[in-house]
């Protein structure tokens, strides 16, 4: 059994390239990219874990369609549906069993092919109580935003600043949306669900990414620039929206587990890749990750702490606001966090990163949260 699990290689394909390709083709390409980086053959892979969703793909047993494209033909493989951070955790656990010394972790979503984010997420709601009253991804985030703004005097401008920052960062990311937007653009964009305007909401993107996990010994054999998984934590909140405290959900608990496991404090994080499908959520999640006191998310963005030049850059990649392949977006955060630790993040690289935090969320307004801490 291995003491530590390392990330050896990462690969990703962004929206512009993926949009007119067949899902199997992009899955194949991202897998070949990983294999070529480590000079491995398909046969050398230990286990393969993928994340996708039947109804986001429109094909039941979604992974069965592209199973072969991720090198899984007649191999040991499994799927973690809906939130790709779980595929990462599953892959890590499989290595820790001692059965495998490598795990390819993969995720894919083609957001351009779906009936619509709201159409699909309204189906997340139960058909008895919550679906008939129209709960969906956007409206539940808006319900959370109104409460957040009211309690802590967070403004629409604060939220718009997050969009301007992340879309600006996205210009440096070859896999993200390439269109700068200003605070004013956000505030002037059409109301989707008050207080969320169109530009406060993430796009629906196509994308696939993968990473290779390995046991400690195998990691050292495959790379001289490893990234180690130092801490993990995840928590889930209640299914009934009215049972939840929307401003104090499961993220604090997930983060505490991850920090405790890593043996570090939030102030030791050098860079964070956070899952913020709605602008104001970056502020709320930053509070709950311990980057600032409760209710001070607005001050955090006002003071520029989370800018590329700030003390704790958040979402150098542009985040989910610049790239939202829904199911895959959590694994994209981990891939970006790993690139920062490797020092291979190109124009979006934060200097001297030793410790990175990656975060994923799924369900209505942060029902499920995962936190992963990576170190060099």
């Amino acid at each position: 059994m291995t003491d530590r699990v390392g990330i050896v290689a990462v690969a990703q394909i962004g929206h512009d390239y993926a949009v007119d390709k067949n899902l199997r083709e992009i899955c194949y390409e991202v897998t070949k990219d990983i294999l070529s980086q480590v000079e491995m053959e398909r046969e050398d892979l230990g286990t393969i874990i993928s994340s996708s969703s039947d109804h986001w793909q429109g094909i039941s047993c979604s992974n069965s369609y592209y199973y072969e494209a991720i090198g899984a033909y007649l191999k040991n493989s499994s799927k973690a549906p809906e939130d790709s951070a779980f595929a990462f955790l599953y892959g890590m656990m499989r290595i820790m069993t001692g059965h495998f010394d490598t795990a390819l972790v993969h995720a894919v979503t083609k957001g351009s092919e779906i009936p619509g984010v709201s159409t699909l997420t309204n189906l997340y709601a139960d058909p008895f109580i919550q679906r008939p009253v129209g709960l969906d991804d956007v409206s539940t985030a808006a319900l959370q935003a109104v409460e957040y703004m009211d309690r802590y005097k967070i403004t629409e401008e604060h939220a718009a600043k997050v969009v301007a920052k992340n879309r600006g960062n996205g210009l440096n990311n070859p896999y993200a949306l390439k269109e700068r937007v200003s605070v004013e653009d956000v505030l002037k964009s059409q109301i989707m669900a008050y207080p969320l305007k169109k530009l406060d909401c993430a796009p629906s993107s196509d994308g696939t990414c993968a990473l290779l996990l390995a046991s400690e010994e195998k990691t050292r054999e495959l790379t001289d620039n490893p990234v180690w998984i130092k801490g993990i934590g995840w928590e889930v909140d209640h299914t009934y929206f009215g049972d939840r405290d929307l401003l104090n959900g499961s993220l604090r608990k997930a983060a505490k587990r991850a920090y405790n496991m890593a043996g570090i404090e939030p102030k030791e994080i050098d860079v964070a890749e956070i899952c913020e499908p709605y602008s104001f959520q970056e502020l709320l999640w930053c509070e709950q990750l311990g980057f600032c006191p409760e209710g001070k998310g607005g001050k955090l963005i006002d003071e520029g702490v989370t800018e590329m030049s700030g003390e704790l850059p958040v979402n150098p990649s542009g985040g989910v606001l610049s790239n939202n392949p829904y199911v895959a977006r959590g694994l994209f955060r981990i891939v970006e966090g790993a690139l920062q630790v490797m020092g291979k993040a190109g124009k979006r690289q934060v200097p001297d990163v030793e410790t990175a935090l990656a975060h994923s969320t799924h369900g209505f307004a942060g029902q499920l949260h995962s936190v992963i801490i990576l170190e060099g």
Partner: protein
Amino acid sequence: MAEEYKSIKEEIHLPYKWALGPVFTKFFENFKEKKIMGTKCPKCHRVLIPARRFCPRCFVDTDEWVQVSNEGTVRTWSLVNFEYSGQVKKPPYVQGLIDLDGADTALAHFIGGIDLSDLEKVPEQVKIGMRVKARWKENREGNILDIECFEPI
């Protein structure tokens, strides 16, 4: 110029039928009498809406049906102003979480009785803490939409 690749389209229709079971059946049957009933946890003493067989926190059977008020307070709200396929209502509409008097959990539902002719003015009309009351449908069928909406008192 790059070659243009093609795509195919298909619509999938999937009819389901879901059993309400004893608790939801009783919960919705009471709607016909304009009554909203929760179930009470014997351990934490919370009255849970919607009614349910067990308390998710204490993981014990709820043991008492308790009628809660048709009136309550808006915990939070939103104005939905975009369209999507399969949407339950034509936008714009207002949604909210309502803390009914006598209940310890909130109910998600529509908020009606709001002038939507100028969307900019909706935030002046709907407020957190606003008191609202259930508006019942005339012909009630035993489902969540027997309550048309909650409207300001």
